[in-house]
């Protein structure tokens, strides 16, 4: 279980990006975090794995207070938190396989990783994951030779090979076309339910959020303004999150059956 208590972040520039956020996410829940640009979505998930240091408050994962960890303890906890990025953030000059295996860095020693001599189980798992996302053939390609959708799938493999308890996903589909976006979201969703993963997914596409998440949290100006079921996103709620707009087209019920892979 992930628990945020009064989590607050004020950047050096003075921006209050998160203001006393309280959130409890039970195991195996997929949560979509929506909100306008600058609401603090990225800041929130980065405060969890401390790519951004929170100013005050705490984040607790399975009874470990992440905000109090030493750098060694933090590295150990980061292994249990897989992260997926908007621009994929693959190391472009490394091969697909190296990118996937880099998810195991927290588990192997320096020299092993330096000579790319990962344990047999890790290598097998890497191939299995690549196969799972349909990229087995691409293992030896350089990451910058892949398309956006393929890169994001490699990014997913890198996060999953960490064998995480929690997935932190920052706008996984923002750079992808609508169809690939759905495929990626579906893939993340399937993998989460296969492995019973907890996930926080930042996403701008309200429809996608409704399609794939069990719970929606709306963030505005660093504060939670909605927390509930996807069906609860009425025009009034969306106005509260994003501001005044004609929302009828956005929350039109989508028929999931009519589109195929």
């Amino acid at each position, binding site marked *: 279980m992930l628990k945020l208590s009064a989590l607050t972040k004020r950047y050096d520039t003075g921006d209050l990006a998160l203001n006393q956020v309280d959130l409890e996410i039970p195991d195996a829940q997929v949560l979509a975090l929506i909100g306008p640009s600058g609401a603090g979505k990225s800041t929130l998930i980065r405060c969890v794995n401390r*790519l951004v240091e929170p100013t005050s408050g705490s984040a607790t994962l399975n009874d470990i207070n992440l905000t109090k960890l030493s750098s060694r303890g933090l590295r150990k906890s980061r*292994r249990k938190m897989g*992260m997926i990025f908007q621009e994929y953030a*693959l190391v472009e000059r490394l091969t697909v396989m190296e990118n996937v295996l*880099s998810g195991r*860095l927290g588990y192997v020693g320096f020299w092993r990783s330096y000579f790319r001599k990962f344990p047999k189980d890790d290598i097998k798992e890497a191939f299995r994951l690549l196969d799972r996302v349909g990229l087995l053939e691409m293992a030896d390609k350089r990451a910058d030779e892949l398309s956006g959708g393929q890169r994001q799938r490699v*990014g997913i493999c890198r996060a999953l090979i960490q064998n995480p308890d929690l997935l932190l996903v920052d706008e996984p589909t923002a750079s992808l076309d609508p169809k690939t976006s759905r495929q990626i979201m579906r893939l993340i969703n399937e993998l989460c339910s296969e492995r019973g993963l907890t996930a926080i997914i930042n996403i701008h596409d309200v429809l996608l959020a409704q399609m794939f998440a069990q719970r929606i949290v709306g963030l505005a100006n660093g504060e939670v303004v909605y927390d509930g079921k996807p069906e609860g996103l009425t025009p009034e709620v969306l106005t509260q999150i994003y501001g005044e707009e004609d929302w009828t087209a956005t929350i039109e019920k989508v028929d999931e059956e009519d589109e195929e892979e």
Partner: protein
Amino acid sequence: MSSLSDNRERHYPTVWDKPPFISNSLLRWGIILGAIIYLVAAIASMEINPQRLMEGIPRGQRFIASFFPPNFADNRGVVWDGILESIWMAIISTVAGIALSVPIGLGAARNLAPFWVYITCRSIIAGSRTFPEIILAIFAVKLFGFGPFAGFIALSLGTIGFFAKLLAEDIENSSESQAEAVKATGANWFQWINYAIQPQVMPRMIGLSVYRLDINFRESAVVGIVGGGGIGATLNTAFSRYEFDTAAAILLIIILIVMVLEYASSYLRKWVQ
């Protein structure tokens, strides 16, 4: 729709100029005028003596003529030794310089190092860059005496200023998101450098290494003149003995080796990309 028709009725300017770089026109014209005055004054203060210029021309012709034909035969042993010494000096000083540059360059990258490490490494780089190789060589000769060891020290120190600075800058320009992604996996610092930073900076660093080897070989001819050994020393001896034909042969060999290195480095750079 109404805003569109409004637009059609309004009058918009048809002339547009790029805003000037310095917006204060007084300051702008002041700077331009100042620059012109300086240029005129500088040219006027230069003493060009046409008579000496005319005398210089035939002397130069005689000087150049004495280079021909280049003499590869006499002094062959000495020249060969000098060249080997220079090549050896260039290679060793490049390797040693780069080995020292890597930790200093890592420390001089603002996004990697804490502030006091950053300042220390930047100061070392600035120190090394302040002095050209020839000054470093004069110091080294004073400290270690004549010979290639002094040249080696001078060139190694010179390499640090060049290589560590470019490495640090390349690291600072590397992609932050790639670095963050590897950090988020729980990698330790060395793994992080190896997986996130090294792949981003390696190709350029390989190219720069060969380029630096090329520079160090050329500089070895210069440091030799102040006592740093190598082909420079041989060249200096040839000049002071008025053996201009041997000097010409040495210069031709230097040109040839630099050309080979130039070709090799461009080939290698293409290959690592």
